[in-house]
């Protein structure tokens, strides 16, 4: 019993990470149907900046956290302007896949140039202590991932439902032209979505660096894993993404224990293929993808 609990708890904390990163994809996807393929590298950048500010520059934890997240958010504004806007030409254009992959390569190498290949962990303000629940252990620094993801999801949903920008974002997803007619620049809305998505990536990276080692090459595999989470859930469904992220984390632990540790990666991507085969818009997807004409 305690083992199952342990697997679930361990899985949940990794799952939080997947969920957080995958949420970043959903923000951009709903407004203009693009996925930022450099999202993983942005997460890496958030983590590396966090480590640099907190450990090397000795800034206070929260300051480092905020600055790292904001910088990544701003960077994503530039990415949107350069690598997305020109290439987002309609539902079937996928040049942005390639342009953002290129951006990811650039980010990773520039980070390597300045940071070197070292890996580092930022000390968490909650310390190194462990929480024991019925014998199953979880570090406090991992445990706080759960409330953070919960709060971020709640904020995101509130943002969608209550704020002007959130409404415009949703409207853009449904009908871009209609939003333009209302006198709101859809480019601006896309840019806002990208900044928010970058913020999420930065937060994800900074948070991650408190428990996991960050180095310049963690980005790509994380990004690919998170994108499969997003696809499994249905990219435009934030709640579904969080659910899928947590589920995937737990599933990995459970499959690792009871099936094989060797095949769990294959399992994840195999699932993606099967889901896309059977339900091309994702498992939890309520509505179809925003169709643009």
């Amino acid at each position: 019993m305690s083992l199952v609990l342990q697997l679930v708890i361990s899985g949940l904390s990794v799952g939080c990470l997947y969920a957080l990163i995958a949420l970043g994809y959903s923000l951009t996807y709903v407004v203009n149907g693009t996925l930022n393929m450099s999202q993983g590298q942005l997460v890496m950048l958030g983590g590396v900046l966090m480590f640099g500010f907190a450990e090397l520059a000795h800034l206070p934890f929260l300051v480092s956290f905020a600055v790292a997240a904001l910088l990544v958010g701003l960077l994503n504004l530039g990415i949107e302007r350069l690598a997305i806007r020109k290439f987002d030409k309609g539902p079937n254009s996928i040049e942005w896949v390639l342009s953002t992959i290129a951006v990811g390569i650039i980010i990773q190498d520039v980070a390597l140039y300045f940071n070197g290949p070292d890996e580092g962990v930022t000390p968490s303000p909650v310390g190194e202590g462990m929480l024991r629940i019925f014998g199953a252990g979880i570090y406090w620094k991992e445990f706080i991932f759960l409330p953070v993801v919960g709060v971020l999801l709640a904020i995101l949903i509130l943002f969608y439902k209550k704020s002007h920008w959130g409404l415009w974002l949703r409207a853009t997803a449904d009908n871009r032209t209609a939003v333009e007619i209302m006198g709101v620049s859809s480019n601006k809305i896309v840019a806002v979505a990208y900044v928010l998505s970058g913020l999420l990536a930065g937060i994800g990276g900074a948070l991650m660096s408190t428990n996991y080692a960050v180095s310049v090459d963690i980005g790509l595999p994380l990004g690919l894993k998170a994108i499969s989470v997003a696809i499994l859930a249905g990219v435009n469904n934030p709640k579904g993404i969080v659910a899928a992220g947590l589920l995937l984390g737990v599933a990995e632990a459970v499959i690792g224990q009871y099936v094989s540790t060797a095949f769990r990666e294959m399992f994840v991507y195999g699932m993606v293929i099967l889901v896309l085969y059977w339900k091309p818009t994702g498992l939890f997807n309520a509505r179809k993808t925003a169709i643009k004409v």
Partner: protein
Amino acid sequence: MKRAAGKRWILGMLVMAMIWVLSACGAGGKEGAPADASAASGSGEAGKEPILIGMSTEATGDNAMNSVNLYQGVQVAVDQVNAKGGIDGRLVELVVRDTEQNPTRGISIIRDFSQKEKVLAAIGGFHSTVMLAQSPVIMEEKFAFMVATSNVPASVESGMPWTFGVRMNANITAQYALKFIKEHFNTTKIAILHENGGYGKGAAAAMTKVLEAEGLKPTAVETFDNAKDKDMTAQVNRAKESGAEVVYLFGQGAANGYVLQAMDKLGWKVPVVGENGTANKGIQEVGKELADGVYAIQTANFNVDQTREPAKKFLDDFTKKFGHIPTTFASAAQGYDGAMLLFQAIEKAGLTGDLAKDREAIRTTLETNLGSYNGVIKEWEQAFTPENHDAVDVNSYLMCVWKDGKLVVSDKQ
């Protein structure tokens, strides 16, 4: 319309500027490497052709840190030999290439060394699969190649007359580890946890083979991915359930730390023995005090006072040049000793100027006529023979252990 065109131009200029800056930075980096060699040439005889040595390293990728140590170790060797006036009055110059962890690129680099740069010999061999890809091509191009880290036995063994190893051959490491475990922990119940790359796979296969030779089996063999896996609960629990009393851990850096975390969560406390992977600081970054007591098989340790003269000098020169001690001891020491062994062979062989003949002479000298060499790792009397191309044997190892956040020499040897 006009404004849009203007914007596009600005954008274009920006991108061009970026490319220019990037290539400028790159060019700066390029000038950096040969500059070291020529700066040290003060005491050498100018005008003579330098001796070219290939350096196949890895500046990018998930364990580039170890490779950087190897490269730095070689640089110290080159500086020392050039400070003494080079070999036969000719300065040694490194031709450095980055394999990018890409076997295809690795093959091209070997051809580059041999045909375009016309090196006399080369050193490198970091990433295991790159080394395995390079080996058959080295046999075609016929020049001596010093494998200074890659632990996979096959790249030096099995009919490879042109590759030599100053590295921790996984087979020999496993023999040493098993002996150590039996002696100090009095058990043979070993669980192997390894990363799914060539490094971990090679080590796991070697340990399995060594155990099988004694009619034993590892209690569990579990794999993880260095880059992707963050939660090792499943792997560790399976190892725990198998009844293992020692963990033979072959991952890279942080991944090893996650293994320690999982052991902590599961309340499983057994000795952990590893090699370079448990020696570099990733394990300590993640595991913090959990890392204390983890063993790392090395060939040198620079956290302690050096007793042997060459090691002392190496550490001094290294610290002077790079401002810190090596971060992966074995890689730096093996890089230095490997390079020095090559230089000694070149000196003893005596160069004729005929590239093919000289390369052949270097090889035969390494095998038969090298003589004694006193290095960082140990003092060798004829390090290689035609039958044995691995210089590091069971007696060359140094067991290290983490203590208070530092890797020190273990009391148990």
